[in-house]
Every structure is written in C-alpha cells, then in structure tokens.
C-alpha cells in the first residue's frame, strides 16, 4: 500500500515536472525577486 502511494506521488511529481516545462516554470525562478507590476515601478526615467 505504501509503495503504491509512493508510486502515485511519484507520477504526480513527474506530471508536475512536465507541466512546469510546458509553462516555462523554473524552481530556481522562485528565489528571484522578479515581480510583475505597472510599467517602470520605482524607477527613474529620462
């Protein structure tokens, strides 16, 4: 039973992996401070 649950969880992880690839999502991107917002938020323009 435990092994079956593990295999199911493993397959879920693999599908998340495929989904992440399809959407261009990277785990390393989570540690970046990139944020969407209105244009030029907090920046100077010349």
């Amino acid at each position, binding site marked *: 039973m435990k092994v079956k649950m593990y295999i199911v969880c493993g397959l879920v992880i693999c599908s998340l992996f495929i989904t992440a690839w399809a959407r261009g999502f990277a785990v390393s991107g989570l540690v970046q401070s990139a944020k969407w917002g209105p244009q*030029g938020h907090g*920046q100077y323009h010349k």
Partner: protein
Amino acid sequence: MLSSEVKETADIPGVSDIKVGKGYDLAPMKTFFVDDIKEAVCVGSEGELPFKGLSGRKTVSVDLSNNAGEFACIEYAGQEGVRLYIGSYVDFSDLQFYNLRDLTANIKKIRSAQLFKCPSCGGPFSMLTPGLTASVACKYCGSTIDATHQTLSILCRAEKKIKIKPLIPIGNKGTLFGIEWEVIGFMRRSDESGQYPWDEYLLFNPFNGFRWLTTYKGHWNYVETMRLRPWKDRAGTDVKFKDRTFKKFLAGKAKVVYVLGEFYWRVRTGEVVDVSDYVCPPEILSCEGDSSEANWSLGTYIGPQEIAQAFGLAEMPRKEGVAPNQPSPYVPLSRHLSLSFLALAICLTILQFYFIVNASDKEVYRGDFTFNPGDAVRSIVTPSFDLPGGLNNLSVVLYSPLNNDWMEAAVDLVDEKTNQSLGFEHGVEFYSGTDSDGAWKEGDQISDLLLSSVPGGRYHLLVQPAGDPGKGGQKSFSLTLRRGVVMWSNYFTALLLLALYPAYVCFRGRAFEVSRWSESDLSPYKAKGEEGDE
C-alpha cells in the same frame, strides 16, 4: 534417524583422539564433525539385533553430523571393537510405518499409571514423557531429579526458594505450524551476570519430538535442534546455512537459573554452557555446548499473537526493543521503494533528455551599453523585440568586463501590449589580484538569471545601471536574452522530492538495525572510538 553399519572402520580415530567440533573423513568424500561424546549404557532391548544388546552394555558413543543432513555414530565397545553407522535424519511420516500402537493413548495410560515421589521433599509427580525424560524439576521444592534410573536421585537441590510462574503452564497444549505441542518443561536462563534473563519452554509431540519456545523481552522464537550442520565462513566469524549467511551476534555463557517440569537431559540449576548466536532474520542459529558436546539449534521469530492464539493466553508481555532475529519491516519496503525510485528517476531523466533535445534556446535580444557611475541615474530603453510562443522561460545574461569592480542593473521587462512590466535586479562583481599564495580571483564578470513563465509577446527593456561612484569612467555591459533554455533546477528538485520517502525509510531501517545490534558486542554499527576504549 535411519542408518546402516559401515564395515570399513580402518580410518576411524581412536577414542582418545576424538574432539568435539573436529572433522573426520569417515567415508569417501564425506567429512563428519563431532557433536558429542558420551558414555552410553544399554537399558534394554527387544527383538533381533546384529550384536548382543545386553542390559548394562557400556560403550562410548560419538555422534557426528555434516552439513548435508547426514549423521554418523561411532561406537567404541571395548573388546567388541569399533562400530560405525552412517545414515540420515528422516521425518517419522516418511517411514510410513503401519500397524502401530496408539501412541497417544499409550502415553496417557503410562502417565496415569506411574506416580513418583520427589526424593527431596516427597512431593508427588508424574512424568509427561516417560521413557524420554532424563530430569524432572520438582514443582514443590525446586530440586532437580535424575529420572534415568528407576531409583530416583537428586541431581541438585534448589539453591534458594525461587518461584517463577511460567506464562504458559506446564501441561498446556497448543497448535503451532499445524502440530499439537504439549509444554513439558520450563527453564529460565541468563547470562553470567544475571542481567539478561530469558525463558525457555520445552514442547513435545510424540511423532515430532521436541521443540523449544524461547522468549526474551516479549519477543518469541520457535526453536528446533538442527539436523543439518552449518559451516563457518573463511573468516570464521559468520556461519553459512542453506545458502544464507548468519552473522555472529554474541558469544558468551548461559546459566540455568530455574527449572520446572521435565527435560530430555540431566539439567541442573546453575549449569553453565558456552553459547554463540548467529542471526539472519527471521532466523537465529545457536550453538551451545562445552568441551564434550556442541549442539546447534535453529530459531525462527514468531509473533506473540501466534503464541497467545496457540496456547490460549489472554495477555502477553509487551515487546521491548528489537530482537536479534526480528524481521525488519523496512527491508522489503526499502527494496520496493528503491526499485520504484529507480524507475521514476529513469522516467524523469528520459523526460529531461527529451526537454533538452526539444529546448528552443533561442536568442531573442542582445544589446551592448555603456554608462558612467558618476553620472546621475538614467534609464536605457532598448529597442522592441519579440518573445515567441506562449508561456516560457527567459534567460537574462549580464556581462561586463569588470576588474576589481561591481555593477548592478535594475531592469524592467515591459510588455508593450499590457503595459505591465516584470522588474528585477541583476549584478556582477569581479575582483582579482596576487598575494603570497599567488594569483587569486573572486566573483564573475558574467551573471545568469532565469525568469519563469514569461508570456509571449512584444517587449522592450528599461535598464538602470549603477556602479561604484568612486570609480569614474565609462563602463560597458551587455544584456543577452534567450528564450526556452534548458531548466535543470526542476529536474533536481523533482529527484529530491522523489528521494525523500525512500531516504526516510532507509533511515528508519538503519535505526531499526542499530537498535537490533545494540545488545551485541559485535555490532557493526559501533563507533570505532568505542571499540578502542574497550
């Protein structure tokens, strides 16, 4: 046992040369090891025999066995010479006797007919296995009685008035492994210090002989005397039996503390024997004996629920710790999880290779810029560029040929359709020099940042570079954007997640094994420092 006499006795050593445990070639290609050496006296005989089976006939009888299930018996009969018998152990059912007496009814009749008195206290008792019992422990005074002669004599008196009530009463019957067993004897033994006592129950079945149930800290073993003899590995510490390696668990002494009921040898309270245990869960091999005999027995771990069910016991003592041969629940689980992890890891790796092969990894923009850190902050607006496709990653590579300097850029990736921007900061720093150890360098002139799930569309960049205002002069840098690059963080994160549960089970399994070996002086988990201290 079924055997036949072997006439060639020229190679048989003399009785004074025989040693327990030593091997002798008694037949071509057959080596037998001595199990015990004893004086045998003929008690009586019936029917036809190839020699005079006179009552009182004395011989020195040597029992030998080998690891092929064969046994041998050498009989030194003084002036009659030496006789050698070689045979094998067989099950009673294999002999397919017929026309036998009703043994069960016969035993009942003998038991009811024979009543004895303890020569120490006069307490009455009857024997459960008349003819097979060698010693009986009186339940009144605790003395052990020699039952091998009609005139009963005391083997030893109880040293002190210990009264231990066995969990399974003497005379209780129970069915284990399809055979009905009767408890005929109980013994408590311990190591020499007395700190680690355990109990042993002698079981009897008229057609299957004797077995033992041993219990220690709530754990139980079903034990039988072995027919096949194990053989030691080259190092001499472990033994092999039926293609399985049994690791040495302990070597010490076992002392009889208390006895009750009947036994097939003359047991004495205080009797001490050498004992060595070897484990290969769920089995345990024990070698007990002294200079005159070495007996091997095989124990199989059995759950207390089975014992309770077999003998109708209401409550069983709680299990403490891990028994030496207790099967680990983590071993089969760990094996299956390892195979599953391997399969999933291979799938993941194949997927990763597919993504690598199919990654577009296309350069969508490259710009070279200059700025002066001493000047007021200004934004650089890049020309527009397209990010093809739907959602995908975007790699931003910042390069600047700095040395002993740093620079940062606040960047906005502006979506020209929605006017939303993705703001982030990117920087590089690089230092180098020489010291007494030679040339050194720190940092990098190039930095890579990965943006996740950036929608496709038309974009431009707003870049605000900054540097060390103390170091004036023009500084150059470049920004390169690549779309759909290979992502490794997802792969390693997924592998880590997949490995979590198998690693946990492995850890628990190891903790189980450490606990198993905690009561052994030969633990493979003992730290080298501890061994040194000892």
